[in-house]
């Protein structure tokens, strides 16, 4: 199981804060494609991704127990 977190616009689109899914072994890219198909989440190509609170790239493979967060363009400050 992996834990997926949504924020900002993505959270509103997904209608939920998080998902627990059996997707260990996927790359971030595959995960994005799957979310696009299953949840019709738009603009995932424009989000950064963090694995366990560190930014990472699309070719990273996710591991059992990881927390994956999709980070839309930030606007703090």
């Amino acid at each position: 199981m992996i834990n997926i977190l949504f924020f900002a616009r993505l959270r509103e689109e997904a209608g939920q804060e998080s998902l627990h899914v059996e997707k260990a072994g996927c790359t971030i890219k595959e995960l994005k494609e799957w979310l696009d198909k299953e949840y019709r989440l738009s603009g995932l190509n424009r989000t950064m991704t963090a694995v366990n609170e560190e930014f990472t790239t699309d070719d990273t493979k996710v591991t059992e127990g990881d927390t994956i967060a999709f980070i839309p363009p930030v606007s703090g400050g």
Partner: protein
Amino acid sequence: MTMALFEITNQPISADDTAAKVKRPEAGAVVTFAGTVREWTNGRRTRKLQYAAYESMAVRQLEKIGREVQDRWPDTQAAVTHRVGELHITDTAVVIAVSSPHRRAAYEANEYMIERIKELVPIWKKEFYEDGTAWVGDQLGTTAYSKGGPKPHD
């Protein structure tokens, strides 16, 4: 407010409180930046804002920016408090405080931090206009990241 140098809070924040965390006998200068809620942006009126954060990661990123600052300006000490939740016009969303023996470094490090925060820290602002709402920075066609936003493993 806690004594943590880097924190996210849903309570009103104060320049003095954040500055107090970095005051010390070696410092002769404390520069603070307060980001406040502006009423007008590009001719559009804001009624209020909602700030949301990925809180644990945001604190981690702020700490990382703090380490960058210590590397670049070794004599400085920095603290950041970012507020989340509902904010109104003139409310303070973020306070950055940097102390330093001499003022130049405090100004430089402070300005560096706000730039980095706007790039790297997972906090989002939702504008409530008179005629709608928008998550800032996330409009199609105005993708911040395509213009060289944060790089992974930065």
